[in-house]
């Protein structure tokens, strides 16, 4: 470690609290690093030097006092409205619930994290701020929709970022960028000023370099302690088909080996309605996001515009069917958690695709990456339960993640499991640093 931005979130907070690190120096160094390193990455297109200094001057003596973070464009800030990855202000400026939790913890918002336009994709190829890239390979996707959050943490621009997750938008980019991404339980923090406030599935998500940092950040956001417990005897629920079977074989093997390393008991699960979960998620997503006013639709990219307009053509009976299936899925997942402590499968079915070729080759065939990704992630959103992606290996030089889901409100179990994974794998995945982060 040669610069303060390279310290972990906990180390930054501890050093500031102990008087060993001047938060003004950390802030200046963070802004300088974003300016120097983020050019091709484009993870943090908007920075707030003046507002960040004002936040620092008035910062609360909370657990994150003086620690710089970025915030996804779905949260309104007192000095800037939320644009949700477009060029149009969609929510007016305010101290959103997410912002207030950061402020009360003493964190400093240094910039807006780039994201897939309107949160309607898992690649980051479309954004009002321009496409953003993966720190491990600047030709590949950082994931989405919170791709800027994951990329900034992976590239050591900031040690923490607040994102969101409406259909995997925290877990997928975390997997692609080799960081920890925790989607919290639905409605676990205040939703005012948050673009997902009108949905039945969107939830905030935190990004950090490792599980210890994620625990620290999540406890501050949830405003409750998340003490560590022993999870060496965890029961892990496995749904073999299609969640493991229909993944890129190398990704499946890497994630499977990581689960093996943990020594946990595996429990085969049957979730009968799971084959319908992808369509159910997509129908609910499109029906709830709705279609913005014509002037907004005219200001977004043609593809996102078409995605939004397509939802207007969807028959109402599809929504009715999706709601019935969703109710069944929620019952089936509740029953599954009677048999296991967490449910596990690869966070994404394959490593990050090239931004110019957003498809994945799976045993079932070549598939648009968004469809394949939502299949791996939508269940947690339909059920509102927390989920996490933990670095679990490398394929083609790119990170892949292990996804775990836990019962409602049990973020602590996921963080315990994530720390166990890191220990049992000798931290050899979580401590890997992308090449861009080694350039001083």
């Amino acid at each position: 470690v040669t610069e303060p931005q390279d310290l972990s979130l906990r180390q930054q907070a501890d050093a500031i609290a102990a008087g060993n690190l001047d938060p003004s120096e950390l802030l200046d160094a963070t802004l300088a690093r974003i300016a120097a390193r983020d050019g091709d990455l484009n993870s943090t297109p908007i920075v707030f030097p003046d507002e960040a200094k004002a936040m620092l001057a008035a910062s609360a003596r909370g657990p994150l006092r003086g620690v710089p973070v970025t915030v996804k464009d779905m949260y309104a800030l007192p000095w800037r409205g939320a644009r949700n990855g477009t060029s149009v202000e969609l929510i007016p400026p305010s101290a959103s619930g997410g912002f207030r939790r950061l402020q009360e913890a003493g964190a400093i918002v240094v910039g807006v994290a780039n994201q897939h336009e309107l949160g309607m994709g898992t690649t980051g190829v479309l954004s009002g701020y321009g496409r953003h890239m993966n720190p491990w390979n600047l030709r590949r996707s950082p994931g989405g929709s919170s791709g800027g959050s994951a990329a900034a943490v992976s590239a050591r621009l900031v040690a923490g970022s607040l994102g969101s997750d409406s259909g995997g938008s925290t877990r997928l980019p975390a997997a692609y960028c080799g960081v920890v991404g925790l989607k919290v339980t639905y409605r676990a923090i205040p939703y005012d000023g948050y673009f997902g406030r009108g949905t039945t599935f969107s939830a905030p998500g935190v990004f950090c370099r490792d599980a210890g940092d994620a625990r620290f950040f999540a406890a501050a956001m949830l405003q409750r302690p998340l003490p560590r417990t022993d999870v060496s005897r965890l029961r892990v629920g496995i749904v073999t088909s299609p969640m493991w079977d229909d993944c890129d074989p190398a990704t499946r093997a890497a994630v499977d080996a990581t689960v093996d390393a943990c020594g946990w008991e595996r429990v085969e699960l049957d979730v009968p309605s799971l084959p319908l979960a992808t369509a159910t998620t997509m129908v609910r997503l499109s029906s709830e996001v709705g279609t913005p006013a014509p002037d907004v639709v005219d200001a977004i990219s043609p593809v996102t515009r078409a995605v939004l307009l397509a939802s207007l053509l969807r028959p109402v009976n599809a929504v009715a069917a999706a709601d019935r299936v969703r109710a069944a899925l929620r019952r089936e997942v509740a029953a599954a958690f009677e048999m296991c402590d967490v449910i596990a499968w690869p966070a994404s079915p394959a490593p990050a695709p090239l931004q110019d070729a957003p498809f994945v080759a799976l045993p079932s065939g070549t598939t648009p990456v968004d469809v394949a990704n939502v299949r791996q992630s939508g269940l947690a959103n339909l059920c509102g339960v927390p989920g996490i992606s933990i670095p679990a290996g490398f394929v083609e030089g790119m990170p892949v993640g292990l996804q775990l889901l836990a019962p409602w409100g049990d973020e602590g179990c996921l963080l315990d499991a994530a720390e166990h994974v890191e220990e049992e794998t000798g931290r050899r995945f979580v401590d890997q640093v992308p090449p861009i982060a080694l350039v001083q």
Partner: protein
Amino acid sequence: MPLTIRCTLVVEEFTVWARGVFERAGYTVSDDDLALIELINSAGEAGLAALAAADIERYPHEPVDPSRAP
């Protein structure tokens, strides 16, 4: 006076119907928009077809409260 009925291709019917839906909602769409919409619909077609084909009687209607644990 006898009514004249003209048959059109299905794809043209889709286009006319879709344009009507969008215009009623206040959106003006181009041919490119419609082509993209058809492409997007085709990407999720298999899943949606499975949902449409599901035996809905297996899934009794029950209210979902998303703010409570399943």
